[in-house]
């Protein structure tokens, strides 16, 4: 985490944090990290004491919810600058069996976890309903697994770039049918940090202000849904919370044609099929058309709207408390035009990040834009 904070300072051209007014700790799990009040330790580690701090948690949406909360701190006038630091240790500390148990604790324990349920299983039941309703195929969602791992090859911080084919995905071990090993995202350790500030604060304190196009946090939406999939019956193919989050964010940003008006997006591909559901719920395509659209290459690097240019959760990795922040960093670098040339989207002016908790019991959509 300290390394991510130092990277952030270098990027801003700051020598230290003395001018920064507020801290915000973003992490999901006291169980994985084996430390409660981790936020206080992190604030201490980077010498931000005695300044104010708050910890934000929202399952898989934690990082994006942290940025949304930090943004609210700034636009409300509570502070003019806030350091958002996110971290998680999901990757190496425990076995994948224990990791699945710990993640399953974020399901409804008595009714979903204790029967042997896992998130892979809940997502699998959901994509099966999507397949039954719209004819979505395993081959279509395998395309996501291939593309995102290929994009990861152009990202130096990615955890697991892979050069694989749709057939490799289809032939990989079944985990929770219809999801197979290569449809599943990664367990990761990682950290990320963003400094959010008003323009006046940045001008006054950041030596590198003006070197790159100014990117501002232009809109945010947050939606919620029932904890258990079964309670959403008969709407079990898609994410209602994501639709609500997108609606709010698009209203705020003045977007009516998201596919045409957004240039780059980082989507929550916890499982390959989830990206298909996301492109529908974010309004990029109509409900039921996500499968064919994804397979057509519309969301590839040379497609109409490149998504998961970073490699996504499938290729870059998914350290939960850092994930939404990593997405925002990827989008910002795309808007600055400083991403690796092999994944850089030309003249990207507006980017979106999409995350959710559980099977979208909480969903957050944040939008970033170039000011020039």
């Amino acid at each position, binding site marked *: 985490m300290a*390394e991510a904070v130092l990277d952030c300072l270098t990027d801003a051209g700051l020598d230290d944090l003395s001018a920064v007014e507020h801290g915000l700790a973003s992490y999901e799990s006291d169980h994985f990290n*084996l430390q409660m009040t981790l936020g206080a330790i992190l604030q201490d580690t980077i010498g931000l004491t005695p300044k104010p701090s708050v910890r934000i948690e929202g399952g898989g949406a934690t990082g994006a919810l942290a940025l949304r909360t930090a943004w609210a701190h700034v636009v409300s006038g509570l502070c003019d600058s806030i350091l958002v630091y996110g971290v998680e240790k999901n990757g*190496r500390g425990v076995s994948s*069996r*224990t990791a*699945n*148990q710990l993640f*399953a604790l974020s399901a409804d324990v*008595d*009714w*979903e*976890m*204790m*029967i*042997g*349920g*896992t998130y*892979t*299983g*809940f997502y*699998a*039941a*959901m994509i*099966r*309903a999507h397949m*039954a309703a719209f004819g979505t195929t395993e081959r279509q969602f395998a395309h996501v697994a291939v593309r995102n791992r290929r994009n990861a090859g152009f990202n130096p911080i990615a955890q697991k770039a892979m050069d694989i084919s749709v057939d490799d995905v289809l032939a990989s*071990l*079944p*985990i*929770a*049918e*219809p*999801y197979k090993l290569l449809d599943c995202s990664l367990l990761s*350790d990682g*950290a990320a940090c963003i400094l959010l500030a008003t323009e006046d604060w940045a001008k006054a304190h950041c030596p590198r202000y003006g070197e790159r196009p100014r990117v501002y946090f232009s809109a945010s939406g947050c939606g919620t849904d029932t904890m*258990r*999939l*079964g*309670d959403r*019956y008969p709407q*079990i193919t898609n994410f209602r919370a994501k639709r609500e989050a997108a609606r709010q964010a698009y209203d705020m940003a003045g977007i009516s044609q998201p596919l045409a008006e957004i240039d780059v997006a980082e989507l929550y591909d916890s499982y390959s099929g989830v990206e298909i559901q996301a492109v529908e719920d974010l309004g990029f395509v109509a409900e039921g058309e996500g499968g064919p659209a994804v397979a057509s290459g519309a969301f590839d690097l040379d497609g109409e709207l490149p998504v998961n240019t970073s490699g996504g959760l499938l290729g870059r990795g998914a350290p939960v408390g850092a994930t939404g922040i990593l997405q925002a960093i990827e989008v910002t670098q795309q808007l600055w035009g400083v991403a690796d040339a092999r994944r850089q989207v030309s003249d990207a002016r507006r980017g979106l990040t999409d995350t959710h908790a559980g099977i979208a019991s909480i969903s957050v959509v944040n939008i970033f834009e170039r000011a020039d």
Partner: protein
Amino acid sequence: MSDKVSSQIEIATIAGDPTTDPWREFRQVERITLELTQGYKYSLGKYSRFFIELENRRFMATRCDACAKTYAPPRPLCPSCLQPTTWQELSGEGAVETWSVLHFSPGSNADVRALETPFVLAYVLLDGADTLFPHLLKAPPEQVERGMRVRVAYSEGPVQHPIHLMYFVPVSTYEEAP
């Protein structure tokens, strides 16, 4: 138990020239193994009657008459009108709406650790209910299909978590308890 390592994974900053590596004093990392176990004693609270009635081979849902909605799993509080609900017995028959075949069990408790993989996790629309109830469906995975008629079967136990006093079976293979 511990091991001492130096790896790129432990410190993400690329070392480069050792004389200018900002973390050169910290590259060696020790890793240890901890075993922590906790027991939990907790109440099933307002949901308790559901589990108690499983011992009597009865499947209970809750109903909000004002909203005309029947909740299975039960909800003590109707989320639509915020009024307490009432218990209502269902037949325990229903139809599979969606499902997954799990080839991997996290072994969340002793009951789940005893399962053989693969097993079927099914979402069942019980007759008379308005929500889907998730549970194990003891049926050959290749025979499961949408709309398949299933019913609640009861277990005598002993079980660790009382949710395992029930599971689903296809109606076609259900046998009345002696």
